């Protein structure tokens, strides 16, 4: 079998990191950082998602690039939907 067996210590490490990040993101939201609050929340969420995708979902260990490509494509298409529709909403009031 080509799939690697990941040491359980690593899984537990990731798990602890994820829990810590959850507490951090909840805590930071009470501090007034201006518009940065949203940015921080999204950066932490993305970092957490990356940890899950890379380690729990084994994308880091996949022997070929295919699952990486699928992840990238999905994110790319989602951003396409979001940015191109927002392009309309953001510029509607421009004059």
């Amino acid at each position: 079998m080509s799939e690697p067996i990941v040491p359980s210590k690593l899984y537990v490490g990731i798990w602890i990191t994820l829990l810590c990040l959850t507490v951090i993101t909840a805590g930071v939201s009470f501090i007034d950082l201006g518009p940065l609050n949203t940015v921080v929340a999204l950066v932490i969420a993305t970092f957490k998602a990356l940890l899950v995708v890379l380690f729990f979902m084994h994308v880091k260990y996949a022997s070929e690039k295919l699952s990486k490509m699928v992840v990238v494509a999905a994110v790319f298409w989602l951003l396409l939907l979001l940015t191109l529709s927002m392009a309309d909403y953001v510029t509607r009031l421009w004059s």
Partner: protein
Amino acid sequence: MATAAITAERENYLNREYGIRSWLLTTDHKRIALLYLLSITFFFFIGGFFALLIRLELLTPAGDLVQADTYNKLFTMHGQVMVFFFLIPSIPAVLGNFLVPLMIGARDLAFPRINLLSWYLYIIAGVMMLHCILTGGADTGWTFYTPFSTAFSNTKVVEAGLAIFVSGFSSILTGLNFVVTIHRMRAPGMTWSRLPLFIWAHYATSIIQLLGTPVLAVTLLLVVLERALHLGIFDPTRGGDPLLFQHLFWFYSHPAVYIMILPAMGVVTEIVPCFSRKRIFGYKFVAMSSIAIAVFGFLVWAHHMFVAGISLYSALIFSILSYLVAVPSAIKVFNWTATMYKGSISFATPMLYAFGFIGLFTMGGLTGLFLAALGIDVHVTDTYFVIAHFHYIMVGGAVMGYLGGMHFWWPKISGRMYPEFWGKLAAMIVFIGFNLTFFPQFILGYLGMPRRYWQYPPEFQVLNVLSTAGSTILAVGYLLPMVYFLWSMRYGKLAEDNPWGASGLEWTTTSPPPTFNFDRTPEVTWEAYDYANIAAPEEAPVEQ
């Protein structure tokens, strides 16, 4: 011929088992393709029937054949049935299902049971749609624009929406199966650069099905919820934005046009080299243009909304992006034409359809340039110009491609030849009928006749009469193949394994193929479209 006689006695996917159960519980991609063939043909004729009623109503300027409400339901159901129950599944679910494993040398699709599930979802959706139609139907147009669909229409919007929601999952599962099959199930030696371009086209189509359809599904879900609970998401009186619906809807429904046309392009890309006895001109460019169309197709959706109230700046962005998608389409047309250069061209029915496809698709594509030009679009959008344009793409393009493909692979599917004379005749009738139906609509559109009009000012009548006349010819052209395909199943000449002398693994197995497609997994050592090394059939295989 001796070989033909042997073929007929061999066990194949058709005669291996008999009985209803052997069909309804089959996981054989070829049998599922035939199940799809039957079901989409049924819906094609339902949608066509609505189209004829629409054309008959428009024979006179006054609304005299049917009531206004009935007319509105007719064009709604025509659109919904044709788009979601015929065009989207047509080539992928019938020809794609049948051919993808055969062409790449696999024994089946990667997930045969999911393939069957996909058909059942289609049937469930179809039954829901039929039930919706029989109990009154919806009158929102196939586009479900809010707030009309969510707050004003008092017809069966929820049912129609849910039917399409379910059919979407059928489409997603087909796409999923194709992507995985093409990645994982290729025979040894079948590298990406040796794949038939039909496969590349289906791969691109599947990308759209996978990434576009869920957005439509969730949008329809929101419409249904909004209608039931008055959430306000699309309702301006509650702070919602009806344009958000349009954005989400067209995010799928514009690429959906490429779900319809890309597979047809794939079919034409098989037919043209075969009947020119030549390798396709510019293989890599044709392959990459399919992928480019699938990707760029997602960047252009708001060109349906230039007068809808979107910001001027986003209109500019979507207009310029719309021109990008025209480039790969143009590349394809030029490559097909170039393939014929110095070929050895013969004129069997599939080739006639391919000629028809190239011609009509060229016109459909060029009129797309008109619509992408902002200043022109303002005048012609929501008029018959748009109707003519997309029928040139979807009927002139996708349906021509579908029929061409059906004739080309009919020997492989059924093991019989269709009658060539009738085939040619039908192709001519379809071509003439189509142009007579839809060309006048370009003129009507520029004159300013809006779409979805039950009655219209009298000065538009002459062109409408022409169009209606054409539609009756077109109807004959579509009925003919159904009749002679059925006839040929019993009386047609037995087909050889490779009656056209075509390249492609599907022609190396018997006609019809055995249940597991190949006696032994083929090993591919040659390039695609290896016509230098395949002899043309001695005589035209059907004229005896």
